[in-house]
């Protein structure tokens, strides 16, 4: 009895060790099928997206490239989508192939297919069974496939070729490819909205760039006493830059020159200065001696080029020796070459005053406010 137990014990030991070895040594492969080689699955974006084709749940294209190892007959090729490379096949969550179409086979050595997409997760291509040569390279793209909906999810496609046209019978060649959905990278940054605007008697440049830090006081005086026989003039300057996508507009705001209850008549239309009549007007141009004994004003600087310099004087204020003043008028904007952002430019506003002989004596003043409004 003891001898029998000892024999059984040793037998069990041997069996256990043999079982251990077998578990490590045995792998399961389709019997008789050859391995498809050089196989890959490339995920390609859909027609109207720039997402590379790996977005979870996106409708994309799946391009299979592989080499058929042996000469034979191929009537159908099946693409079985699974969560695992081997074993029981579970269709990945969200994957949909019932709308799949055969996208392209023009580069393939095996052609002439049409698609059968009736079973979700297992579309196959079919054709009249035809011969293939060893090492034929198949490049077959299936379109309108909905990716699995889980992000960063690996999924596998088991490719099998069949001699039959409907994937019946044993597979001739097989191979599995892997692909993965991907969580998109979301990148963002903020470009701060900017506007640099200043006014003063003068605004200078620093290193050739208009610099609002150099703006002087905005208190300016006319070059001479008002006279019915001569035109009094003055200038001020302002600088503006913005990155507003639709540029800026500058308005002038304030009353005409006033002394108590007396005023100098504003120029309500754009006209030339005429000595001896009441006129208060401005423009943003370089004027000539036809306006005043000493020419006043300069053109906008740097000169606008329609790209990074877009500032311009607006109608009624953009003609030399023609002046106008209406509170609230837009006198300039950054639309040269189209509304948009502009680097800093300096405007020179020229002011003229003409008075009639009956203009009451006194000190005439006004406070003008320029408002620069960017549109982002």
């Amino acid at each position, binding site marked *: 009895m*003891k001898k029998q*137990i*000892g024999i059984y*014990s*040793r037998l*069990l*030991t041997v069996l*256990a*060790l043999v*079982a*251990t070895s077998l*578990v*490590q*040594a045995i*792998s399961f492969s389709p019997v008789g099928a050859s391995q498809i080689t*050089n*196989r*890959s*699955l*490339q*995920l390609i974006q859909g027609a109207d997206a*720039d*997402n*590379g*084709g*790996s977005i979870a749940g996106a409708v994309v294209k799946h391009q299979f490239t592989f080499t058929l190892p042996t000469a034979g007959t191929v009537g159908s090729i099946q693409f079985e989508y699974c969560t695992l*490379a*081997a074993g029981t096949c579970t269709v990945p969550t969200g994957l949909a192939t019932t709308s799949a179409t055969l996208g392209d086979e023009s580069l393939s050595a095996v052609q002439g297919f049409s698609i059968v997409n009736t079973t979700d997760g297992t579309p196959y291509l079919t054709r009249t069974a035809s011969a293939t040569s060893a090492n034929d390279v198949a490049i077959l793209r299936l379109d309108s496939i909905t990716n699995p909906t889980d*992000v*960063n999810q*690996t999924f*596998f496609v088991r490719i099998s070729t069949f001699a039959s046209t409907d994937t019946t019978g044993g597979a001739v060649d097989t*191979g*599995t*490819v*892997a*692909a*993965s959905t*991907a*969580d*998109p*990278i*979301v*990148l*963002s*940054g*903020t*470009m*701060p*909205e*900017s506007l640099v605007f200043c006014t003063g008697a003068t605004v200078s440049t620093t290193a050739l760039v208009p610099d609002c830090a150099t703006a002087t006081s905005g208190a300016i005086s006319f070059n001479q006493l008002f006279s019915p026989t001569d035109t009094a003039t003055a200038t001020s300057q302002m600088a503006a*830059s913005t*990155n*507003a*996508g639709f540029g800026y507009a500058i308005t002038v705001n304030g009353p005409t020159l006033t002394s108590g209850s007396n005023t100098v008549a504003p120029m309500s239309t754009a006209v030339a200065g005429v000595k001896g009549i009441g006129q208060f007007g401005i423009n943003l141009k370089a004027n000539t001696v036809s306006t005043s004994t000493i020419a006043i004003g300069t053109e906008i600087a740097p000169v606008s080029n329609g790209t*990074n310099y877009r500032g311009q004087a607006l109608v009624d204020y953009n003609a030399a020796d023609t002046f106008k003043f209406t509170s609230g008028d837009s006198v300039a904007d950054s639309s040269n070459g189209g509304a*948009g*952002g502009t*680097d800093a430019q300096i405007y020179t506003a020229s002011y003229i005053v003409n008075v009639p002989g009956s203009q009451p004596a006194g000190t005439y003043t006004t406070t003008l406010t320029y408002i620069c409004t960017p549109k*982002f």
Partner: protein
Amino acid sequence: MLKRFFGGIFVLLALLMLIPANLYAQQSTNYVLDESVIGSSGSNNSSSSSYNSSSSTGDLSVGNTASDNYQIDTGSKTTHDPTLSFKMINNGSSLGDLSATAPSMTTTSFSVLNYTSYGYVVQIFGPPPTSGAATIASSPLGSSSVPGTDQFGINLVANTLPYSIGSNPDNGQFGFGQAASNYSTTNQYHYISGDTIALAPKSSGETIYTISYLVNVAALKPGGKYSTSQTIVITGTY
């Protein structure tokens, strides 16, 4: 009686050898075992809702040996089926405030593992950052950072300029991933949607890639939030 006792012990030990016992993150200040198991066999793709692992043990040698015409993966017997794993480690990234005087940079990272393959390529897809109709132009090949000009570029290596940022691909013990040629030069940034940005020439363990993003803007770049969504596509050859 003694023989039965030892026989039973042998049987018990033999049965225990059938049960692989995975361990979590074996490491100390002096060592780390990336892929570990105690037992007589390996396990491919062990997973639950909380973890995923591939493990093996008992190998006299492990790794990949390859030439132009062949490759050998040495180690415990594993499945010949493809193994692909892709993970975004950090996929949301802010460049902060953009400026015409100072570059903006940030990083994202992802990992790829692709065993039993003949390598893989990593492509990136997506437009440069946009805000409405405004777009930050992509950097041409070989560009270094130039503040005040439109530049959107990336690379996958460690940089020192304009800032110390980014990392070279981290191949751990078994990875063979590398940055693609147009994205592998330190301090140079480039971007074309659809480009191959990384690759492994052969079967590769996990490689962690870090994408460094560079953005410069012109002074007149319209204000607003610039954003883009980019996608990584891995294509393995098996």
